[in-house]
């Protein structure tokens, strides 16, 4: 292992397995909104509800109004989707939402503008942007991190940046105290899991099945063991996503997980039945999640 001091004064270790690993001074009071959100729900023995929406779907104005309405409907943490032409981990519902969004002219910059607008009225709900590496890579990781911080974004989930490839973005995020949230999956084996969770910030996103977003959940009831496995490896909250579509399922998952993520069902309802119906769905999902341990 070799060390080098980067221009920002953080010590970077070059680990042959994991590329760039930050081992610098302890992370400052970072990812504050995320921590406070989990702390608040935990104190009340409630699970956190994480809601996904595709930014800019079907257009900027509609999408902004929907985004602004999420906290009042019960969303504790917002995952704001960045549209991409080639969303290879997503099912048709989210792919089509991305197509509508891009058609309306949405770019990565638009997504950050939406976050900025949201922050004018809400300074407590965490926003995690979620998408694929190329738009960020094209903007430049350093520029993106600075712009995201300025926009009031708290972190990011980048699907096609596994631990082996996320070193550059993590270094850029560290400068601005942003959380780069990693995914753990059923294929993440016992040897790999500790190393995956070691580099994540804010929370660990457990993808509860092998597959794409929106697929139906095959193995009901197995979440408990999976969550226990990830929690044993991580000192962070664990949220569970993929395959949760109904309040019943959300309630079941929320019994064991620190948080429950719903994406496709929200995006689908917004598109097919409009914002009011989508917010109704969110209220029922959030309520089921919050009260899952009652």
């Amino acid at each position, binding site marked *: 292992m070799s060390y080098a001091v980067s221009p920002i004064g953080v010590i970077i270790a070059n680990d042959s397995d994991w590329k760039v690993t930050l081992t610098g001074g302890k992370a400052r009071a970072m990812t504050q909104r995320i921590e406070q959100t989990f702390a608040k729900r935990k104190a009340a023995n409630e699970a956190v509800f994480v809601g996904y929406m595709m930014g800019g779907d079907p257009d900027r104005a509609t999408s902004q109004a929907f985004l602004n309405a999420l906290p009042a409907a019960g969303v504790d943490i917002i995952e704001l989707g960045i549209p991409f032409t080639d969303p*290879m981990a997503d099912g048709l519902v989210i792919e089509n939402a991305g197509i509508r969004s891009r058609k309306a002219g949405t770019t990565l910059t638009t997504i950050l503008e939406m976050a900025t607008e949201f922050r004018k009225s809400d300074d407590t709900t965490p926003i995690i942007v979620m998408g694929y590496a*190329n738009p960020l890579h094209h903007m430049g990781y350093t520029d993106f991190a600075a712009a995201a911080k300025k926009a009031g974004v708290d972190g990011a989930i980048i699907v096609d*940046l596994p*631990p082996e490839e996320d070193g550059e973005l993590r270094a850029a995020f560290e400068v601005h105290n942003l959380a780069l949230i990693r995914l753990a*999956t059923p*294929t993440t*084996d016992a040897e790999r899991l500790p190393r995956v969770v070691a580099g994540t910030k804010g929370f660990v996103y457990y993808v509860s099945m092998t597959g794409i977003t929106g697929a139906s959940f095959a193995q009901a009831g197995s979440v408990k063991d999976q969550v226990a496995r990830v929690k044993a490896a991580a000192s962070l909250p664990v949220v569970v996503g993929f395959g949760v579509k109904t309040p019943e399922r959300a309630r079941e998952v929320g019994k064991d997980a620190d948080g429950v993520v719903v994406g496709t069902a929200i995006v689908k309802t917004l598109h097919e039945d409009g914002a009011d119906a989508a917010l109704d769905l969110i209220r029922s999902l959030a309520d089921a999640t919050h009260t899952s341990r009652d």
Partner: protein
Amino acid sequence: MGKPENFAYPDENGRFGEFGGRYVAETLMPPILELEKAYEEAKADPEFAKEMDYFLKHYVGRPSPLYFAERLTEAAGGAKIYFKRDELNHTGAHKINNCMGQLLLAKRMGKKRIIAETGAGQHGVATATVAARLGMECIVYMGAVDIVRQKPNVFRMRLLGAEVRSVESGTATLKDAMNEALRDWVTNVGDTFYCIGTVAGPHPYPAMVRDFQAVIGREAKAQIMEAEGRLPDAAVACIGGGSNAMGLFHEFVPHGEVRLIGVEAAGKGVKSGLHAASLTGGSPGILHGNRTYLLQDENGQIADAHSISAGLDYPGIGPEHSYLHDIGRAEYVSATDDEALHWFQECARLEGILPALEPSHALPRTVELAKELGKDGLIIMNMCGRGDKDVFTIADALGEHISAGTEG
């Protein structure tokens, strides 16, 4: 730039300089690491090499000839032009070299469900062929647009027992077929082997596919030494993802005196914006598991590629080509749809060979280079596929109506 003899890439992280890598969802990381390990073991196993050699010789029909294209040489009026006749392989293209290797590896790994993406259908046909021979289930993802323009290959795959799944999303071409194959893999990760058709995708695919295709260059080098007693001045090949070019180039990379020239598809012209020339008209980005040159807009969205050739209609290129480009070891030029159409016809009339639309792109640059090098020059061009699959597209472009004769 490293000395020519030091071209030992990729590194342990799958990097060719700053290109390559493993940009996949976490779900796919363990399987690609497993694949890498299995490939390394197979590579070191003489039994695997023996099995591969057997199938390449008796089933694929290797070695393919190195043929002196005398009348094309006369027409060009310069350097001697040789064709490496990989269109004479079983299934009519170089693609089967790689499928043979990957499916023998799949067999070793105990995987019985094979998935593949295809553009022109050549990789799909080759995968379906080898899967049939080895008794494996085969599913081929193909863009809806490509299914229309490559009907004969679609029917061929079905005859071989493969299931062809139409991909309607995005631009409904090769890149979308690759997205869909990745979605399948991430869903069926336990029993499925993804047979990628080109030198792209996450590590170890770019290196593994190159290694399986490198037989082209190894044979060509020995054959040109026998025919001419010296190395060629240049090796020329068309490039979509770049597997036939990498296969021809690899053996010659350490020989700095051999110019390596890749010809991308310029579609209606690189300036028109309607093209598939990632190196000539793109910039570095991340797609389909690797960092490489891509066609993309100012916001990092992938741009649509355009080419009359379905096999070159891809907005990216293998990462090793990006590396050879940046260090200046290989040169990358382009040819338009019209040039490819023109030289397709010239080649048919002069040499009695119907080239596929893909290598038809390499012909105009080969002829120009022959003039530039003069009578003492020596060129090898990879004739990587035969044109039978393209006759309907070509008839269309020439304004003639012929019946497809098969269902679509």
